[in-house]
């Protein structure tokens, strides 16, 4: 057949990935290369999981023999259980505070005309750049004078405030994207402000609130420096500090138990991340409510 016929016989595609594939003959090499990199990244994780199931775990990569969950039992009773409970408290309380506070502020910033709104938003953006290291010592001093040290609750408030600037930005932008027409339609139908808020606005901004909450929770869960400095009460020790203390305890490092401890501590965050990434890639569309 002629050249034109041959070209016409090719299946139509504009998919760039497919088009590139046709041209690249080196693909198998690239696949192998990426797999090798992946394997390198996998090794430490593999060690962690294997060690956690290995009652005789050392610091080298080895298959557990026998495979058992003894380490998990031991870790749990040696303090992992209590510590994770504390992390739950710190992350939970700080998330509730930060999300509530940021949603209220984000809503007002998105919907109402406020004097100096622009300056306020720039300030908040700027605050996201201030590192914890700067705030640590003065906050410690303030806590000393207020006698707020060694308290889970006040530590949670500090953790909450770390997340507030970013959460306000996130929610303000998110709420700003929700078309005002929903609120206007409800208003003209006769709904009062409170009814509009609870029946119309909140259902529509729940995805944004959830993303903000999950991000705050993940950040507060892994908190190390702030609880280390602000709360010396052993009963309040959260997971991260607990693992550290376990690591630096005198005597042989209990690799197996620590591995189990770490896995227990890390799993909640991984699960949350999986949940939220599904939300994020699903996108937030007000399907059907407005055209397009």
């Amino acid at each position, binding site marked *: 057949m002629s050249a034109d016929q041959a070209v016409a016989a090719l299946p139509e595609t504009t998919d760039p990935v497919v088009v590139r594939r046709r041209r690249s003959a080196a693909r198998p090499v690239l696949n192998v290369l990426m797999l090798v990199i992946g394997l390198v990244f996998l090794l430490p994780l593999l060690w962690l999981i294997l060690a956690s199931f290995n009652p005789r775990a050392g610091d080298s990569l080895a298959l557990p023999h026998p495979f058992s969950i003894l380490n998990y039992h031991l870790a749990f009773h040696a303090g992992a259980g209590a510590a994770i409970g504390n992390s739950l408290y710190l992350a939970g309380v700080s998330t509730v505070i930060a999300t509530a506070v940021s949603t209220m502020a984000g809503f007002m910033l998105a919907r109402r005309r406020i004097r100096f709104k622009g300056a306020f938003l720039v300030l908040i953006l700027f605050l996201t750049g201030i590192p914890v290291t700067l705030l640590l010592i003065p906050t410690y001093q303030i806590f000393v004078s207020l006698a707020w040290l060694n308290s889970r609750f006040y530590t949670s408030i500090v953790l909450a405030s770390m997340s507030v600037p970013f959460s306000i930005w996130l929610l303000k932008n998110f709420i700003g994207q929700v078309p005002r027409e929903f609120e206007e339609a409800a208003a003209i139908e006769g709904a009062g402000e409170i009814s509009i808020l609870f029946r119309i606005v909140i259902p529509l901004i729940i995805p944004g609130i959830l993303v903000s909450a999950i991000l705050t929770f993940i950040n507060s869960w892994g908190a190390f420096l702030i609880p280390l400095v602000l709360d010396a009460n052993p009963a309040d020790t959260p997971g991260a500090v607990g693992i550290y203390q376990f690591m630096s305890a005198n005597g042989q490092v209990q690799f197996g138990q620590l591995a189990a401890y770490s896995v227990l501590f890390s799993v909640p965050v991984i699960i949350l991340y999986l949940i939220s990434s599904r939300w994020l890639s699903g996108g937030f569309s007000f399907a*059907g409510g407005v055209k397009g």
Partner: protein
Amino acid sequence: MAKIVLRRVTKSFGSKVAVDDLNLEVEDGEFVIVVGPSGCGKTTTLRMIAGFEAPTMGTLHIGDTLMNHVPPKDRNLAMVFQNYALFPHMSVARNLSYGLRIRRTPKKDVDSQVHEIAEMLGILALLDSKPAQLSGGERQRVALGRALLRKPQAFLLDEPLSNLDAALRAQMRVELKRIHAQFPVTTVYVTHDQVEAMTMADRIVLMNHGELQQVARPERLYAEPANVFVAGFIGSPKINLIAGQIEHPDGASALRCLATTIPITPDIADRVRSSQSQGVTIGIRPEDILPCSPLGATPGQPVLSGCVEVIEPLGAETHVAVRVGGEIVTCRTPPRSGLEVGSTINLSFDIAQASIFDASSGLRLC
């Protein structure tokens, strides 16, 4: 049902004036269409009537009550938004009944009324669906249904047809008129499409740059436009606007335009003379310029000779652009008129059918 009166209403946002000194009276049960190009202030006016904005100056009365700062929920109005604003987390049935449920209407009544409206609008099968599952036309009907159910004292519609394709739009124009005949509620409808305005309105309110240009029945707006803007906005194809001068050869009065002199009656001459400047703009509708024989059809009417530049056959008629006396003039001819680009054509028109505007102010002289 109520009368809507705007007196000297002005709305400004900071230094920008969106609506300037608007006076408007919408009669009880009237279907009024506010039309104009983007940015003319029509949507702002509608939003002031709805209560989402308050007038900076002036008064708004709905049904004899001063409403400047009354919240939208207390105005007993219904609105169809450009993007429908159907609550995405509620089913069609719950969307329709939203207003009724707020007023704590008994469930039995709610259900029967929803059923009735859904039947009338042909959306009965969709009652349990969510808005995301509906097509554009279906969503629009739900939005209409929600407004109708409330039995408000006035309907407000903000470009409701602009998101529909042309065929659906034509169909909905007929539907809306039918619904208004069945429920003769005072209606204020905003659009940028002059075809919708001409076909549906009892009266048209034409705005430009925040200012009212003219309020009149569609026929009057078409035949007697108040200024050059109105003349150009209404009517398709666009009216021919030709520059002209008043002259007085041998004591009589005449208009000089398109390289021809046209005698005018003393009556017209008087009104034209009252304008400040010597120049005028003459507006002639394309259907009023007719091809004729070189000797002219009617005495007193000018004969213009020109060259055909563009021919646009539309099937039922043909639009022809002719270069006459240095300007381009559009006229409408029957199909199969046998014209060719480049050929010479003779045209004639009756000056009495034209509108004459002052060249500088644009206002109508006669």
